[in-house]
């Protein structure tokens, strides 16, 4: 079995072989924290390599993006502050083209972490492939005091992969952890600095969001 697994991992990939990655997009509360970004960026690269992809670093895609953005003087309207979609699209497609031309990247992966509402019933919360206890009474407690239902704030990792023409090839999601717990009748936020630090949960979320990627990209060779 082990030999078969090793053989599969080393077998030449069919379809998309080289994939560029973006640095993870974090919710505003976390945007300036370097640790969660570094942690997830490195986990994603390592899972992709483990799945047999050649990975083009986030630094490479960012450098191309910044160069193209600056060369057209930015993509926001200086009078309204609003995005000029035509300019943004030009930077986006130009980056995809450059990633392919310079690094042979046939696809580009964009990961982001978002707050979501995770449905709970009693003490258990299940969302995006994971499970966690809510803090609300469940089991015998739920039987005695009444079962609560609703949705509780949680964090999930979303991934999207596009081909070099900007067409979506894949999207995946994995639940990370609850951002609030139920105490009595109310939600109590988990301190922001205590979130995204559980190595086991982070790894599980990255696998959930990426594990079906190789199968989905197997037959895709890009435009």
């Amino acid at each position, binding site marked *: 079995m082990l030999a078969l697994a090793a053989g599969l991992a080393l077998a030449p990939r069919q379809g998309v072989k080289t994939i560029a990655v973006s640095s993870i997009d974090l919710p505003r509360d976390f945007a300036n924290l370097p640790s969660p970004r570094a942690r997830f960026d490195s986990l994603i690269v390592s899972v992709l390599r483990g799945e047999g992809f050649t990975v083009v670093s986030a630094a490479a895609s960012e450098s191309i993006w910044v160069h193209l953005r600056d060369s057209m003087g930015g993509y926001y309207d*200086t009078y309204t502050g609003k995005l000029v979609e035509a300019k943004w699209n030009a930077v986006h497609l130009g980056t995809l083209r450059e990633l392919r031309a310079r690094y042979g990247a046939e696809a580009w992966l964009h990961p982001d972490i978002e707050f979501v509402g995770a449905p709970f019933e009693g003490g258990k919360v299940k969302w995006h492939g994971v499970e966690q206890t809510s803090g609300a009474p469940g089991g015998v407690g739920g039987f005695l005091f009444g079962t609560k239902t609703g949705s509780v704030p949680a964090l999930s990792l979303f991934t999207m992969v596009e081909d070099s023409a900007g067409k979506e090839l894949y999207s995946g999601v994995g639940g990370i952890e609850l951002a609030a717990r139920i105490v009595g009748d109310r939600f109590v936020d988990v301190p922001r600095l205590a979130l995204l630090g559980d190595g086991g949960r982070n790894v599980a979320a990255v696998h959930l969001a990426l594990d079906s990627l190789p199968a989905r990209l197997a037959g895709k060779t890009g435009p």
Partner: protein
Amino acid sequence: MSRCRVRLTCLAFTLAVALAAARGAAPIKTIALSPTRLPDGLDNPEPVRDLFDSLLAGELAHAGVTVIPSTEAGAIWKRLADSVHGFYSAITGERVEAKYRAVMDGTRRELADRFHADAWLRPRIEVVPVDFQDGKARWDGASEGMGRGSSGTAPALSLVVSVSDMSGTEIYSGRGGIRVLSKGSKNISRDKFFEDSKRNLQALHLAIDSLAARLRVSP
């Protein structure tokens, strides 16, 4: 911040303004009006802007002050914004404070120098989230029926005015609710947002009546 605290803050601000007036702040004889800023996505914004500009100008003139029409402040603003090529960053989309300040201060100076304005009124219409319960939405002094016994949150329009003196200090702010934009699953069509002239006028009075009263008692 809770709604109650917001109201208390507004009340405290109004009292502070009234107190300043009572202590002999310079009377307002000439007020410059900016064009009403509107929310994005209106199909035909110009008639709406004209409507609120003219309602405001009429009400202020009725209170006995000379009104510099919004076209003047609008033209100065545009010229100064053009001179700095807009005050948002093309790279981030964020406002560049130094450029914005230059346009604000320049407009204010010009309104004072050329038109002898004592104050500058800037109106805008905002989309605000409104909580409703027992079938009634109440916000910014207005109220509207939402359907028997219903509760929740809905978007609504409010007229917001802010008046500064010619040193840039805010001397008045007022708000008036216009209308709710969706009831249950029914969204009000954009071309009907401002069709109820009674509600428009009521919002105007809610937003500026205490300013107009102050202007009337000024010597």
